[in-house]
């Protein structure tokens, strides 16, 4: 049994980052994520790490990429408006295949929106907010325990697949306090060091696998990284064959490993005829709804993506084939429902309930909606 702790979501993320081996944080204050920065400002210098508050969100993203190239694990944290600004250099990290972790504590949008209230309106900006084709990994915790565990997982995935990973939480999960169990043992994955000498090293060489090792600065491996399309050496190339091959490898390292990356929670789905599809803080509400409806005799369960991106298409299709009806519930005006319809729509009915007014949608409303729809059919 690990240590039991009463802690807020933001502080859990900060402490888990240290546990994961993160030794660099660059950020810019933004509600409701600032407590992550504040806690790491305290903790990092005690662990020989560096905390820096940069002049803006763009600079914070740039700084963590620079820090990561030295071989250290690096983190930044923000909320929707800040995430919009980070997109530019996030795209660079994807192109340069540089492992970093970005926390997005979602608040209500668009624009400045509702700084102190939750939202789930960044699901698509996380996926598609940058220009160009790319895959991204995004994890969505629904508790503080998961905030802790997923932070470590985010660093692991970033290092393993040499890619930025997003931890997508929201104001509710990040600001509330609940007890967690700090696990005694956690798996920590570190970056793979090149197995070849510097003269044979190419930072984007896919010949030995989809994820070529990234050499840390200062170890004799002097290479070039650019945001331009490049060949295996890292130098610019506009040769269509080279461009396509490199881009395909960058996409495939996530796509072909999707079974290793994607995770879902199946809550009371075994005998279910109906299911709710919800994530993050709304999935917690949905669990309550599931239990309440079960008490009324409705055989319902919950399918909850723990990995928002890549999307849990296979898992969803698998259940869609068995279910009479899927109810998507989200704190926005219709984002993830599009994906659910895309995969499950062929096999079953998909209905949607949601809104974005800065408040968790209470269980009663969702219950009434589901019962009404079940009744209608």
């Amino acid at each position, binding site marked *: 049994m690990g240590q039991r702790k009463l*802690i807020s979501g933001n502080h859990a993320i900060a402490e888990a980052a240290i546990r994961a081996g993160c030794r660099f944080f660059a950020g810019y204050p933004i509600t409701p994520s600032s407590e992550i920065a504040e806690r790491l400002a305290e903790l990092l210098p005690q662990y020989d790490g560096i905390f820096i508050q*940069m002049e803006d969100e763009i600079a914070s993203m740039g700084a963590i990429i*620079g*820090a990561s190239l*030295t071989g250290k694990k690096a983190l930044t944290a923000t909320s929707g408006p800040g995430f919009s600004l980070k997109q530019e250099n996030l795209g660079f990290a994807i192109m340069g295949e540089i492992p970093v972790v970005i926390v997005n504590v979602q608040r209500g949008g668009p624009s400045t929106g509702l700084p102190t209230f939750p939202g789930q309106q960044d699901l698509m900006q996380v996926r598609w907010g940058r220009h160009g084709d790319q895959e991204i990994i995004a994890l969505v915790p629904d508790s503080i325990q998961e905030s802790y565990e997923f932070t470590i997982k985010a660093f692991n995935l970033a290092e393993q697949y040499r890619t930025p990973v997003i931890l997508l939480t929201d104001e509710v999960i990040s600001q509330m306090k609940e007890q967690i169990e700090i696990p005694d043992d956690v798996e920590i994955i570190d970056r793979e060091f090149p197995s070849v000498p510097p003269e044979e090293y190419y930072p984007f060489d896919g010949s030995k696998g989809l994820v070529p090792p990234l050499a840390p600065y*200062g170890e004799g491996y*002097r290479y070039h990284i*650019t945001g331009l399309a490049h060949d295996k050496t890292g130098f610019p190339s506009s040769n269509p064959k080279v461009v396509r091959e490199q881009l395909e490898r960058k996409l495939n390292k996530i796509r072909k490993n999707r079974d290793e990356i994607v995770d879902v929670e199946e809550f009371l789905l075994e005998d279910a005829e109906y299911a709710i599809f919800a994530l993050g803080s709304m999935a917690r509400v949905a669990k309550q709804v599931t239990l309440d409806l079960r008490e009324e005799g409705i055989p319902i369960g919950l399918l909850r993506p723990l990995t928002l991106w890549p999307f849990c298409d296979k898992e969803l299709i698998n259940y869609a084939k068995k279910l009479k009806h899927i109810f998507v519930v989200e704190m926005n005006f219709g984002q993830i429902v599009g994906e659910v319809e895309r995969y499950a729509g062929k096999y079953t009915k998909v209905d949607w309930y949601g809104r974005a007014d800065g408040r968790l949608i209470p269980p009663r409303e969702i219950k009434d909606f589901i019962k009404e729809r079940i009744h209608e059919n």
Partner: protein
Amino acid sequence: MKTELAKKYLRLEKLPTLWCSGCGHGLILSSLLRALYLLNIEKDKVAMVSGIGCSGRTPGYVDVHTLHTTHGRAIPFATGIKLMKPEFYVLAVMGDGDCAAIGGNHFIHAARRNIDITAIVYNNGIYGMTGGQVSPTTPYGAYASTAPYGQLEEPFDIVELALGAGATFVARSSIDEIPKLDRLIADGIKHKGFSVIDVITICPITFGRRNKLGEDPMMNLRWVQDITVPMKKAKDMSKEELKGKWITGIFRDEDKPNLIDLYLELNKKLKHSMVDESSKEGVEDVRRQDET
């Protein structure tokens, strides 16, 4: 020395450069290499970071740790590297648009926090790579593709900007005084703290052609001679006479605590007084909340 230097620091297989004939950027690159050579700096201890534009291609030719980032962002990336590799020499190579327009905020804050990075600005007063649009250092009245009737705005003085923001080594030079430029860059690299070397250079193709200098590099170089004034000479000139001129020389060379040293000191101090990670999590912030 020349071939030795070239062999030591250049990625020879990447030559020739993509810069147009007559471009001044190659002169700055060679100055930069001579500065590294003069200081006998180990290649494994150098990171060269750039932004976007013609200047942004510089790192590609140099055999050190090289990073060609997004437009205007060389300094933030360089900051992350320097903070985690204090023993590195970190160079940020920027154009005038990189430094003073899209990256202006990063530039002044790096100066304020006195982080030990050497910023070298390839200042040709134009966006060359994108076809000759006005930049924040385009002279008043000069022509550009986005100022077909002449630039209506006053240019930024990068030296004044750096001085005002607190940079601890600030110098200006030009491609017309190469041996001096070598030395200035070397001084900047040696300096502990944020150093800025503003280098006046030319773009015959997109600036010269539009501003009655033509594509002839000599004509453009003469223009550089005309608009630069050594500090000594400038002292005896009136404000009127100095209008539209860039003064060259060392404007500041100051010893001041830099961010890295301060941080390393803090880390050392804290190492011996680790805060107890008890279960009283979140106690402090609740108190802070309610006591003021």
